[in-house]
């Protein structure tokens, strides 16, 4: 079985400051890793995903994440946030060869203040 823990339920940050949203996972099998974003009143949208290769993954809107196998982490970062980045962010895993079922964390609410 897999589980995902997002260590911060809320992250307030000022505009143009850097931000890191933390994600740790647990799994007995190999997994793919995803970050999704949910803007108010909109569906979930993929930010980025790690499948293999380079452990640093770049996504949309200037976000990036680093896969750390030894620490079973996949933290999301952005060097300078905008007001428009205010949203709920979800980390998720999908086990190899299990059809694509996503296991999500509880979510982190990013609030960017002017």
């Amino acid at each position, binding site marked *: 079985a897999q589980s995902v823990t997002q260590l911060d339920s809320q992250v307030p940050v000022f505009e143009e400051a850097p931000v890191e949203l933390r994600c740790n996972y647990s799994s007995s099998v190999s997994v*793919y890793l995803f970050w*999704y974003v949910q803007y108010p*009143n909109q*569906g979930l*949208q993929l930010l980025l995903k790690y499948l293999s290769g380079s452990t640093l993954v770049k996504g949309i809107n200037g976000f990036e994440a680093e896969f750390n196998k030894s620490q079973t982490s996949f933290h999301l970062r952005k060097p300078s946030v905008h007001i428009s980045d205010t949203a709920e962010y979800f980390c998720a895993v999908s086990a190899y060869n*299990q*059809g694509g*079922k*996503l296991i999500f964390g509880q*979510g982190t609410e990013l609030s960017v203040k002017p």
Partner: protein
Amino acid sequence: GAGVSQSPRYKVAKRGQDVALRCDPISGHVSLFWYQQALGQGPEFLTYFQNEAQLDKSGLPSDRFFAERPEGSVSTLKIQRTQQEDSAVYLCASSLRRASQETQYFGPGTRLLVL
């Protein structure tokens, strides 16, 4: 092109009523997923189809929940004899292929409130 659509967007039901939630996936997408998202929580997997075949229904919380995708396109999630604990947002997602690394495209969700 068109994304995943869901209807209705909002549904209020009295306890004990049956409800049906519809999902229209992206055309040509083989895989279709249903998730349940309680208030303040992350989405939780309910069930998964590859074309018309329901390959995994391990997440359905009780036998009151039933999903179908008879022609491998549109899917319906039915909840019989609704209970207050069924109140949640129900999300549908589709992906092009059956593979764990595929990106899932989500619809806007149906918000169900059971009174």
